Each structure stands twice: as C-alpha cells, then as structure tokens.
C-alpha cells in the first residue's frame, strides 16, 4: 500500500474524462471521410482542430502529471503550482471548447500562420483560440519551471544531467527517470518559449497589423509543436524507467551510456523539427540536411540504449505481468514502431512522397497512442493499484490489452496504407481519384471503435482502483 498523490489522481480524472470524448471526435472524422454523416461535414475541420489540440494537450499534461508524480518520490514539487497547472489547464480547455463549438474555429492544432486570420470563422474565435493557447502555454511554462526547481532542490544541474557519469564517477546515483525528466523539461522550456514567441507575433499582428514572415513563424511553430510532442513521449519513457524495474525485479540504473544518450537527445531534439519544413524549398538546404541527420541520430540513443535496456531488463526476468507491466512493455513497442515510421518520413527523399499524407498521422498516432498513451495508462494503473491494492484478474487485464492493441494497430495500418497511397491528411472528404481513402477510413473507424471498447474496459479496471485511491490520497 502506498497512498497516491491527490493531484496525480485529479489529472487521471481529467484524462479519463477528456480522452474518450476526443476518441469519439476521431471516429467521427474517419466516419465523415468514409462518406458517413454527410450533413455534418462543415464540423469536420473544427472537430479536427479540437481533436488535435485536445489530444496533444491531454497527453502532454498526462505525461507531465506522471513526471510530477515521479519527482514527488524524490523531492517536492510545489502543491500551489500543481493546483495552478490544473486550474490553468481547465480554463484553457474551456476557452478552447468555446472557440470551437461556438465560433467553429478550425485553424488546425498547429494554427499555421496566417491561417487563423484568414478562415471562415469569426475573428473573435481566433482570438479566443490564441487566448486559450496563451493560458495553456503560460500555465505549462510555470509548471515546467517549478518541476525544474524541485529537481534543483535536490540535485545540481550537472548531477541531474548525469555529467558525473560522463566523467567516470558513479556517485551520486541518479535515477534515470530524473535524468530524462530534467532533459525533457529543459527542452520543454525551449518549446514553450517558442510557442510564446509565436503567440506574441500573432498578437502583434492583431494589434498593430504588422505582418510576420511566414517562413519564420512556421519554423517557430514546429519548434514548439514538434518539441512538445517529442518530450511528452520522453516523459512517458521516464515513467517506464521508473516503474518497470519493480515488475522485473531487477534494477535499471543510470550509467555512462545512459547519460551520454540522454544528453545527446537534449541537443538533437532541438534540431529535429527541421524535418517539418523539407517541402519548403526556400529553407536553406543545410538546415534540411541537419534535420535529416538529427532525426536519424535521435533514433540511435533511443533504440540502442532505451529499447535495448528495456529488453535486457525484461529478458528472462522473474517478471510480474499485470496491466501496468504489460502496457509499459506494449508502450515501448509502439514507441519503436512509430519511431520507425517517423524515421522513414524524416528521410528527405521519402518525405517528397509522404509529406502531409496520412503517413504523418500514421506514425504519430503509433507513438502517441500505442506509445505514450500506453505508457501513461500503465503508470496510472500502477499508481492506483499501489494505493488500492485490489486483487488483479489476469484474464480480464489481458483482454483489455488485446482489445486496445488490436484496435490501435488495425487503425494505424489504415493510416499507413492510405499514406503509402498518397491520400492527403486533413481532407474532410476525398475526391473520386482518391476514393480508396474513404474505404480505408471506414475500416479505421471500426478499429478505432474496438480501441474505444478496450479503453472503456481499461477504465473499468483502473477506475475502481482510482476511486478507492481517492479515499486514501495524500
């Protein structure tokens, strides 16, 4: 028995509430693309925007909640800031819901400049959207800085980044999760700062009418968007580093190689976003090639160190398999498979054929849904089960995993196939030439529904423990 942190439990509640709604939006989109619900087609792009911002936001905060919970085991994140993060996020979500449902705002989740100013939605809804992102961005920036402060209370910067391992010293022992969280949070400050600059440029145009350079804003936007999503994934991996050893009954410690790889990631993650601009030929070629090299390079520390480390941890271990350990393991598979899709897409000569086709959602759904979501679900289940200590039924937990995996991968495969057939992403309906996109969508909608059923079973499994944990929360 270990009482759960009440803020972690609140975040779980928020996630469990918003996630199924956002899944339904996703199923809705695939249905419209398949030719169903034709009367609602004008809602496609607003819902796409909400699904995008919502999913990115929910899984970012869920991953941050896991990170904060892990940090709570070693040091003390400020409870006030935790409250602020929760409150600020809810205000941001309300603003977002207002601009989408009342204003039909449909600028897309990365609101590529100057689209928010030039759509068919009213100007106020674009302003509400920007305000929503401002509230979220500012809140998350404060949250990130506070978590860094909490780490700084206990470790020096060089310790937290594991630089003493690089120098050949093993003391003091730093948990790998702390190292990864530190790296991710520092990158997070950069991402959020880029977001703030983008917003400032938008406001500047709003108030003074001074236009910005579209190429520069695009660079900043993807620096923000790509990095944020990327580090949310890393926070999920940190959770695996933290908890999976308990189930394997073996240690998973930091060492020189782990330190090298995650410090490399800190550097590389700042350059990988260039791969979003491959098809902007005005971007200097050097940056494009740096983008491909950085994207490839980030795969090596991830694959060779983390994935190999995880496999070594589990290999022939006296493993206690339950929903948590199973989902951690599956989450690492999703990360690896999605990462492979990403590496292929980050190859410039392949990107010509894949850029902005459904291959893009294919790979990011793989590492977000089958990667990050599984890792976070594993951590959430782990926390509630530790607090609730209820008997576990292996059969039911296997069923949950099988349904989620089958639903998710079936649904991804339709995306990958569509991407290979050059079906563009973000099309509400498909022209006759690309009608097969609609057929893939129909199958995808079925698989996504299977995933939703799997999720509801997961919710039943975790929800009861979550409720019990709430009674004893600290």
């Amino acid at each position, binding site marked *: 028995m270990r009482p759960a942190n009440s803020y972690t439990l609140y975040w779980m509640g928020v996630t469990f509430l918003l996630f199924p709604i956002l899944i339904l939006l996703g199923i809705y989109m695939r249905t419209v693309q398949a030719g169903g619900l034709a009367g609602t087609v004008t809602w496609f792009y607003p819902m796409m925007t909400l699904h995008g911002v919502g999913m990115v936001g929910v899984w970012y905060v869920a991953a941050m909640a896991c990170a904060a919970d892990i940090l709570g085991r070693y040091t003390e994140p400020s409870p006030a800031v935790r409250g602020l993060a929760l409150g600020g996020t809810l205000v941001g979500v309300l603003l977002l819901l207002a601009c989408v449902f009342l204003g039909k705002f449909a600028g*897309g989740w990365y609101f590529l400049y100057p*689209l928010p100013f030039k759509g068919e939605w009213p100007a106020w809804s674009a302003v509400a959207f920007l305000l929503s992102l401002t509230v979220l961005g500012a809140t998350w920036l404060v949250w990130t800085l506070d978590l860094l402060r909490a780490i700084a209370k206990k470790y020096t910067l060089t310790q937290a980044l594991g630089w003493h391992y690089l120098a050949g010293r093993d003391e003091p022992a730093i948990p790998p999760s702390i190292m990864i969280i530190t790296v991710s949070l520092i990158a997070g400050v950069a991402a959020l700062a880029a977001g703030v600059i983008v917003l400032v440029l938008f406001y500047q145009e709003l108030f003074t009418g001074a236009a910005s350079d*579209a190429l520069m804003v*695009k660079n900043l936007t993807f620096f923000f968007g790509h990095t944020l999503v990327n580090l949310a994934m890393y926070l999920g991996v940190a959770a695996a580093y933290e908890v999976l050893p308990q189930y394997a009954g073996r240690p998973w410690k930091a060492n020189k190689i782990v330190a090298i790889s995650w410090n490399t990631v800190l550097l590389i993650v700042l350059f990988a976003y260039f791969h979003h601009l491959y098809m*902007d030929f005005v971007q200097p*070629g050097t940056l494009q090639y740096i983008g491909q090299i950085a994207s490839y390079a980030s795969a090596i520390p991830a694959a060779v160190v983390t994935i190999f480390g995880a496999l*070594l941890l589990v290999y022939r271990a006296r493993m206690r398999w339950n929903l948590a350990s199973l989902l951690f393991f599956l989450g690492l598979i999703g990360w690896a498979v999605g990462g492979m899709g990403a590496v292929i897409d980050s190859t410039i000569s392949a990107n010509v054929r*894949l850029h902005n086709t459904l291959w893009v959602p294919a790979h990011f759904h793989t590492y977000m849904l089958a990667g990050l979501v599984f890792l976070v679900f594993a951590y959430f289940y782990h926390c509630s089960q530790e607090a609730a200590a209820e008997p576990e039924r292996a059969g039911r937990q296997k069923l949950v995993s099988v349904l989620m995996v089958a639903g998710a991968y079936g649904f991804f495969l339709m995306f990958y196939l569509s991407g290979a057939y050059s079906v563009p992403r973000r099309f509400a309906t498909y022209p006759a030439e690309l009608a097969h996109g609609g057929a893939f969508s129909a199958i995808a909608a079925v698989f996504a529904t299977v995933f939703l059923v799997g999720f509801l079973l997961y919710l039943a499994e975790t929800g009861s423990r979550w409720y019990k944990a709430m009674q004893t929360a600290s």
Partner: protein
Amino acid sequence: MRYLAAVLLLCVLVPFAPARAENEAADRGRILFEQKCASCHTIGGGARVGPDLQGAHQRRSEEWLLRFVTEPDRMIAEKDEIAVRLVEQFNRIVMPNLGLQASEARELLAHIKLVGGTQAAAAPPQPAAAPLPRPDLIAPQSIVLGVFLFVSAIIVLVFAWVGFSTRQPEEVNVKKAYGFRKALFATASAVVVATLVMTMPGAPYAVASLKADRIVYVAARQFDFVFSDEPITSAADLGRIPTMRHLDLPANALVEFRVTSLDVNHGFGVYGPERQLLAQTQAMPGYVNRLRVSLAQPGHYKVFCLEYCAAGHHAMQSGFDVK
C-alpha cells in the same frame, strides 16, 4: 473654334457613353471576378467549390443577386430559402462575406451577363464523379511501405521473443549483454550513416546547372491554383496577368513550377496518372518555391492542396496534361 470642336465631340460620344460605361463596368467586374470569385466559381465552366454562375442573372432576381454578393453571411443567417438551399447543395461550404460594395457587385453582375451570354441554364453541379478503383502502388511508395512493415515486424518479433522469455526466468550475464549492445550500437550507426549517404542525394533541392525547359508560375489561394506564364505575386495581379485555364506540358521536359501563395500556406502536390504523389512543394505567402520535375508518363496529372487551408481545403485541386 475649340469650343465648337468640344461640343461636336460630345455630340458624337454621348450616344455611346452608356454602352461604353457598361463595358468598363464589365471589365472592372472581370478583374474583381478573377480576384474574388474565380477561386470557387466559374462562368460556364461547371460547378467548383460553388455553383457555375452562367445565367445566374436569369435564374435569380437582380435584387437577390446583389444582396447575396454583398452580404451572403447575413442572408444565410436569416435563412433565406435560396441561400440555404445552395449551402446544402454545395457541401455546406458557406460563401464568405468578401467585403464587396454594391457598386462592385453591379460590376460583377455586368461581367457575368457579358460572359455568360444568354444561355439560360448553367451546368448543374456536377454529380460526384464515380469513385475510381484503388490504383497499384508505384515503386517508391511500395518500397517505403515494404521497409516499414519489414522493420516493424522485426521489432514486434524481438519484443515478443523477449516477452515470452520471461516464462523461463534465469540470471542474465550483463557483461555479455553490454558487449552485444556495443555491437548493436556499431551496426545501428553504420546503418544510419549508410542510409543517410544513400538517401540524401535524392533530395528534391538545388538541381544546379540544369536549365528548365519550361517555367510555370503557380499562385495558390483559397481554394484553387492559378497557372500562368508570368509571375503572380499578389491578388492585384489577378485579372491583369493572363492565366492559363488549361495547361499542357511536354513529356520528359524539365518543368519548373514557381509556386507561391496569395493568402495562407498551401501545398502543391503533383499526382501522376497513377494517382500517387510524384513531387510536391509548399506554397507559402511571401516566398516562391521552385519545384523542378521531369514528367515521363503522358496522361492527366492532378494537383491537390497538401497543406490544410480552411473549409474548402479538400476541394482545392487542379490538373494538367502531359503529352
């Protein structure tokens, strides 16, 4: 004497004045049409994002037309019967308020009358074209998919093997494992470097010292692509610079598309006769991207917008023929 001449000149001109004024209005209307309407409508060219406007002045009252052109948003909000029906008919894509004055609306109408002639009926909205069957994957795309599926299968097999190994727990020789990791690291690095070296020359940039056989200027806007032999860099150029309604390109010629955008970011995705992507570039406001392609296979090529650009994004398309 000079006075007399002026009076005489006036006598000659006055009878023609209304006709000339009408023609001038129609010409201003033509420019307005190119700038504000042609991205969604044609006159006699069939329905696009919105209806074909040929004969619109005969189908609807002038009063209705003038009001709809100047304030479509209010008429839709007031649930005007015809306006609502049109919205239903055209995939619920709503005509935006373009900020046109009443005088401009009259000029537009003059242009539509002049071009549309007296044909009473416009082409009905084209029934949705029959869906085409799924094409066969072309080589680069199938290689990409094949590589991905192959590597993914290996990943899943390795994880499955490790997962099932926990059925027979035993202590693992960590030193040996670290040795294996070293080998893995070396192999992975070698694979990465080799792939980089192999794929980077395939990048679509900077084909130095190659001279384009044909240059086509492309201006993207919500929601169509305008082709021209001359650069169109602002909305004001539309209607003043000749554009191409139909584009034919010679097979195997090196064609350079100089792509820009007049409003938001768009994508210029070239789909070959196999209906798969052959090349693409972004259309970004303020910049011109130069996409060079050599199109070997004769046939009809499609261009789809590959960057989300608001409500009509999926309807934003164009095409050309390679002969």
